């Protein structure tokens, strides 16, 4: 099939939704902390206002029903929820759930752990007013709205896997949305619960997922790929360690001893090598921050096992005893060899020809390498240029530039009069 400019490369074009360019988003909060909403507000790809103003080509305009954002309050705010549950909304909708889902459907008497709206807001089609003017349980809205939704997205680790409110010691019987709706759940388009975990999630992870789904609803792209527990596969397919900028320290067996140290954080309690998350690749916002990048150990906050399988926090994961020791031995040896190559690479060929480093900063560095380094370099070069030409060898025949060391040639000598700022000279021992 042919593509036009503006297509997104989808191969199968599903039929467009009736009504086309508007999709409602019903944001339900269970036992939340608002952190996921706050993360969503900070997203930049796309931004909230770009979706709600309909500024992105081919992406339907989003009508956001969110208690943190809505102009209306009370019954006016709840009316569209009621219409959606009744089937009278007339336009497609998506349900987003933030926060853990309490087990309050099982309370024998009245009471709730998370609620929104009062009894009069509850749609007649769902069994009449409940408990008179009592608060309507958030869990009621969830079971009533989920089946009719184009998709149901659980945002954050509470809504996906239960999170902290479902941790040991909880008295609310909390669970994730997948647990609550069960394995038979499919949205009106046949999509199981979509899970965008993280405590709080990277805002862009959620907005990108929502935008991809909206494009799919409009028939512009295939349904994106998800892993076996409903995570967007392209975001959560790698461990957070693989893209961690401190992973290189791990490889060389160099570890932080206490918080604030620059090296790999595994031994102060970082679980990154066994956690699926993309924050080190994407940053927390706009490619800035991202836990370990700023020095924060990973506590597994995107994972179904969070928090209990990763605590006590600030204690080295047991697995790191084996992997850490291994990397100390092998990585330690490799790091020492790399130091030699690094020292070699830190010298211009001309410096070697001239037998001196002209920088007043670098006078501490010997230009004539240690004999052991020389031997190492000899074999290294043999391997480096095996089967090809040693182009670099021609450097040795290159004459020294005549105007090299021009100040001395002109008789200007600053050596005696201007001291070198030795206190600003740093040599990184760990290199």
């Amino acid at each position: 099939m042919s593509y036009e400019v503006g297509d997104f490369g989808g191969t199968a074009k599903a039929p467009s939704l009736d009504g086309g360019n508007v999709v409602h988003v019903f944001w339900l909060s269970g036992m939340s902390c608002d952190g996921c909403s706050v993360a969503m507000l900070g997203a930049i790809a796309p931004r909230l206002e770009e979706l709600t103003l309909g500024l992105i080509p081919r992406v339907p305009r989003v009508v956001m029903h969110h208690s943190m954002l809505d102009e209306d309050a009370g019954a006016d705010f709840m009316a569209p929820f009621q219409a959606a549950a009744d089937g009278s909304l007339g336009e497609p909708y998506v349900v987003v759930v933030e926060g853990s889902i309490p087990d309050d459907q099982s309370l024998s008497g009245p009471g709730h752990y998370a609620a929104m709206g009062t009894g009069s807001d509850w749609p007649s089609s769902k069994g009449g007013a409940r408990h008179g003017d009592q608060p309507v349980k958030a869990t009621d809205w969830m079971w009533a709205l989920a089946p009719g939704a184009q998709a149901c997205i659980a945002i954050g680790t509470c809504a996906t896997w239960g999170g902290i409110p479902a941790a040991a010691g909880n008295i609310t019987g909390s669970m994730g949305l997948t647990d609550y709706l069960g394995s038979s759940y499919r949205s009106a388009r046949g999509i199981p619960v979509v899970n965008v975990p993280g405590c709080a999630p990277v805002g862009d992870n959620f907005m990108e997922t929502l935008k991809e789904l909206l494009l799919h609803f409009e028939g512009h792209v295939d349904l994106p790929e998800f892993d076996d527990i409903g995570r967007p596969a392209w975001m959560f397919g790698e461990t957070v360690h693989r893209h961690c900028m401190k992973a290189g320290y791990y490889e060389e067996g160099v570890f932080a001893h206490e918080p604030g140290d620059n090296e790999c954080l595994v031994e102060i309690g970082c679980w990154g090598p066994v956690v699926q998350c993309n924050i080190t690749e994407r940053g927390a916002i706009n490619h800035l921050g991202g836990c370990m990048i700023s020095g924060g150990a990973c506590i597994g906050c995107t994972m179904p096992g969070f928090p209990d399988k990763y605590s006590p926090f600030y204690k080295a994961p047991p697995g790191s005893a084996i992997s850490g020791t291994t990397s100390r031995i092998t990585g330690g040896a490799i790091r020492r060899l790399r130091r030699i190559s690094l020292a070699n690479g830190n010298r211009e060929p001309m410096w070697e020809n001239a037998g001196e480093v002209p920088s007043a900063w670098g006078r501490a560095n010997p230009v004539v390498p240690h004999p052991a380094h020389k031997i190492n370099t000899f074999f290294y070069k043999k391997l480096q240029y095996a089967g090809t030409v040693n182009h670099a060898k021609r450097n040795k025949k290159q004459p020294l530039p005549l105007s090299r060391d021009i100040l001395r040639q002109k008789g200007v000598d600053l050596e005696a009069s201007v001291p070198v700022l030795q206190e600003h000279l740093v040599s990184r021992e760990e290199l």
Partner: protein
Amino acid sequence: MSIQTLPAPQQTMGGAARNLRFDPVTRVSGDLAFHASADWSARTVGNAVAMATTFRGYENILAGRDARDAVFVSSRACGVCGTAHSICSALAIEAACGITAPPMGIVARNFLAATECMIDHPSHLFLRAGPDYSEPVVRRTSPELWARAESTAAPNAAVHGFAQISQIMAELTRYSGWLYREALHMTRMAREANVIVGGKYPHPQTITPGGVSSTVDATDFNLTLMRVVKFFDYSRRVVAVWDDLTNFFYNADARFADVGQGPMNFLDAGLWEDPHAVDSILSSPGESRWSKPAAIVDGVLQTSDLREIDAGVEEFIRHSFYDDWGGGSQVYDASGNALPPRNPANKQTLPQPGSADPDGRYSWSTAARWRGHPMETGAQARLWATALAGAGSPAGLVESTGRGVRMSLPSGQMPANLIEWQVPGRWNAFERNRARAYAFAQATLMCYENIVLGLDLARRGGTDVRIFTPYKIPKDGVAATGHWGGARGYVSHHVQLDNRVIENYQIVGPSTFSGSPRDDAGRPGPCEAAVMATPLVTSDAGQSGIDVLRTIRSFDLCMYCASH
């Protein structure tokens, strides 16, 4: 169990009484349902109840965990001010261990706290409160005010760039208004600065007992500084917008000064620790903060001593979904005095869900009081505390005048200037918002000063540049408390440890005061009382209750901090 219901709408002779049911109140943080009865003939509000409708059980989950889990678990009680809860929890654990963070660790925390305020305050002013003053809402609820706004020049036009008051209102419009979108843009920039040190926002990943684990280098100072300097002009504009809006409403109808009126009772734990005073943090907590702790009753400073403030706090549960704890442990303060039985340090969390009944139990929040007084918390309380209890700042950009706060905003694209907030003669919804705008400027300056201070410490080197103090959780039983100022104000964490395990953990958030239900003596919470004291000034033909909503939102409540 019998099903109790809220009273049906009252029908008076004229049929003028109508229940205002805001379930939920939108544009507040967390789940808040607010029921009030309005008499539209008398233009008054009768009874009002604030209901926190969510409970999660953080305190129950924290009990029995390793003490090292406290920071990361308790901070997740709130997704807006996770930094404040993290720092507060770390302070409690540090007090239990008898250590303090080193100077650079304190500077990093100060910076994180300031950026959190720089995210919260504009978010409140333009995303949560702002739409109440936007063109669509003003046109709908008071066409005559809109007409007046169209013909009223904005006195601060040279600063914010909007010629008419109506133009400000148009730009406050949700999603499409320039001021709304600018707030999103600027708070995203503040988030960027925040995560460079905090790792992520919300829920920072680098705050630990003993300091922070951030790896801050010269690039980080540069990246944060280059963002924060953009906030000088923005602060000027935010203050100018809210000054103009407030004065416009006062001039339109003097009774707007009664909307959301309440007593000048404020509680604040202080914020921004002086890193050069680390030695005194344990012996005299709060004393070396640049914004001082304060308990203010009827506009008069009662005490600035954090221990006295702490000892005066009590939590009541007659109208909350909890069983009484009674007979719990007895915790003593640092001087060996027994803390009151209803002090959070002695409290236990015994949830008991049930039906909502305004005469009985109706909220998941406890009713926190100070020496029996309902107290307001938040940015506005911090500004009052700074004015009355005193302020310090290393470069003197923020100073207390005793009856106000004077701030020197450095130049941006606009020239440097002085702005001054003065303690107002009346206290109401408009003054809360105006104070928050000035508090935003204060947070911006504190952020800037801490970056400059951090650079100075880094250049001087030595032990001051350390960001972490090693700690050992004591094996013996110990009780400790941490206090800190969140973007919304007073936060305290109370921990009892035994054998390095958390025996009891209690959290008090700002809205446990501001958004509280009635206490055992029947005194309404500050937000409830303010609503009950509100005249319905706006014509509001549709009876939307806009004056009530403006009142509720002026508190910048966070119901997740109120009930955890």
